[in-house]
């Protein structure tokens, strides 16, 4: 179970219709790969964020499947376009079943 998993997302508060906005996301998570061994030589089991999705007003922007090769504190950057005022929903799915969410409103002129 990952403690203190905190998302950090950069989304502008306003945008023009269909403007390309670059979104950067970061989330604090150890991304335990399942390759490391502990002091007694036992494998530390894999425990990672395995999926990230970004949606805007219910429509998909990106759906990313993540493997253990993604670095600790996974960073994802992608572009979205917003056709109208609304809200982004960002969701991270953890191997252990936890789901982390963040939401950001954008005003579209």
């Amino acid at each position, binding site marked *: 179970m990952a403690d203190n998993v905190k998302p950090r997302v950069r989304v502008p508060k306003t945008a023009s219709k269909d403007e*390309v*906005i670059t979104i950067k996301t970061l989330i604090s998570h150890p991304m335990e*790969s*399942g*390759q490391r061994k502990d002091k007694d030589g036992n*494998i530390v*089991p*894999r425990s990672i964020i*395995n*999926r990230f999705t970004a*949606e*805007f007003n219910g*429509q*998909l*922007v*990106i*759906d*990313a*499947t*993540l*493997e*253990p*090769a*993604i*670095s*600790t504190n*996974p*960073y*994802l*950057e*992608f*572009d*979205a*376009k*917003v*056709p109208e005022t609304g809200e982004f929903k960002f969701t991270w*799915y953890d191997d252990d*079943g936890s789901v982390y969410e963040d939401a950001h409103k954008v005003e579209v002129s």
Partner: protein
Amino acid sequence: MLISRRGVLSAGAGLAAFALLPVAVRAQGAAAAPTQTADEVIAEFTGGAEVVDGDGVKLTAPEIAENGNTVPISVEAPGASEIMVLAVENPTPGVAKFVFGPLAATQAAATRIRLAKTQDVVAIAKMADGSFVRTASNVKVTIGGCGG
């Protein structure tokens, strides 16, 4: 709960392979699922279709990674529906798969990855017409002198 690729494998065609695993590994469950080779990962993505090298997909990665634990990369394939990234010499070759939805402004993504050693990072894009295009970048992973 999300079904991972691992879940699909063991539920379907992987059942036979799964049965061949040593008992101890099977008993550990998901944490010790069989590692696929890079070719198997690719075949699963393409469904066995032909993959052609081309510049329909671009991969940006440093020539030399100052530290293998955090290597920034980005991929872009205009018009693609999905892009998959692999690190062929990592213990498990899969790195990420990006599926682009209707509100993706570009078919591009950037992230930071772990590379166990010097190797090719490969990006394969699934284009709108169902074809697959591939590119690769060799990244040298260096060992620092201080170690610590």
